[in-house]
């Protein structure tokens, strides 16, 4: 999973608690930085921003101008979680710690640019490649992995009958349903390609199948209210691991599971079933 260590600036430019505010202003101007972590004997104790500098007398020491309640993240914090913290606290940057040691700084811009690269612009869901890398990290952590592959039925006909703008609207609705119905930390949805969606989860396959059925019903109900009902065929693969085991080829295992789920969704389509489990 993408985390802050991949986009942070490292090493961080810092100031000491006894430095003057005027020195901070000089450093900010030199490096064109709007905020600097403050260290006291090597430990993070605050953050000073350009706003703090503007409001304080230049003769003051940093300890008398900085914000003491510094919000920070750890090196393995997922990018999406860091983004939520920045938005919730209305911050522009976060110091990054490895245990107790400051190792970098990540800004809102760094995070938004990276997230943008892994976000499908139409649905707002994560891209298929991101979900694939997420599946690998689930296996790396020796967790249960179930892959659910969703394929919209007859979507080409919808596009041809009602136009591509209407088709895009349907895809947006479907994306919204996925986003709104994925419990945090359990189900991770993404747009795989065209009218195909992929979801990976740490739940077992039976639970994943029940969840997929619910989603398919919601998609049918919601799209019906908005015009033309869209039906979906889903395939479920994996999710039957008993205890931890070592995966020698994580990437190949993920490829296999996606492939099996995709083939199972084709069977669902052929048999007019909502969900089929890969054998």
């Amino acid at each position, binding site marked *: 999973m993408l985390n802050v260590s991949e986009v942070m600036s490292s090493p961080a430019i810092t100031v000491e*608690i006894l430095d003057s505010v005027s020195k901070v202003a000089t450093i900010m101007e030199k490096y064109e930085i709007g905020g600097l972590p403050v260290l006291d004997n090597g430990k993070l104790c605050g953050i000073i921003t350009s706003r703090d500098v503007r*409001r*304080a*007398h230049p*003769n*003051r*020491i940093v*300890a*008398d*101008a900085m914000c003491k309640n510094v919000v920070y993240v750890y090196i393995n914090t997922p990018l999406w979680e860091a983004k939520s913290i920045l938005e919730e606290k209305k911050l522009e940057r976060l110091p990054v710690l490895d245990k107790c040691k400051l190792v970098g700084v990540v800004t809102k811009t760094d995070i938004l640019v990276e997230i943008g690269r892994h976000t499908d612009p139409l649905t707002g869901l994560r891209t298929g490649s991101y979900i694939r890398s997420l599946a690998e990290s689930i296996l790396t952590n020796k967790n249960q992995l179930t892959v659910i592959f969703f394929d919209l039925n007859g979507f080409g006909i919808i596009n041809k009958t009602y136009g591509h703008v209407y088709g895009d609207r349907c895809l947006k609705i479907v994306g919204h349903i996925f986003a709104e119905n994925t419990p945090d930390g359990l189900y991770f949805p993404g747009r795989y390609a065209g009218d195909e969606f992929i979801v990976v989860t740490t739940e077992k396959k039976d639970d994943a199948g029940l969840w997929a059925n619910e989603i398919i019903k919601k998609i049918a109900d919601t799209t019906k209210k908005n015009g033309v009902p869209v039906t979906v065929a889903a395939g479920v693969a994996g999710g039957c691991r008993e205890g931890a085991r070592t995966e020698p080829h994580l990437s190949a295992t993920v490829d296999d599971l996606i492939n099996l789920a995709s083939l199972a969704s084709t069977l669902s389509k052929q048999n007019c079933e909502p969900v089929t489990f890969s054998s």
Partner: protein
Amino acid sequence: MLSLKSGNLNDTGRKAQISIILSEFEIPPIQDVLLIGRRAPIGTKAVQRMIDVLSPEQYEILNVNEGPFESVVIRKSLSRLVTQEKLLSIILEEGHKVASETAVLKAQINIVLNINVEVDL
């Protein structure tokens, strides 16, 4: 005060006048009370470090949430004569009348206790 004129050192060139004022450095330099403005050139943490070095354990720093001052430094011995709350409210009230956020004010406080005791003869 000691004053030295250097008029005879150079008759034709530029002249300089040196004036020296010698006086005793007050320990502690902040007397009884120090009021620190929110935008003063020196802040609470810097003052804290100063008093820790110059007059350890003699002063107490009280943070103020509202008004032009961010904190008040009070000599601990004063709090034994008058409660801290009473002293602080009087100091802040008077300080507000004369100071701004950029000021650092020092104040000398004299407290005289008048005690009348009646005893049976």
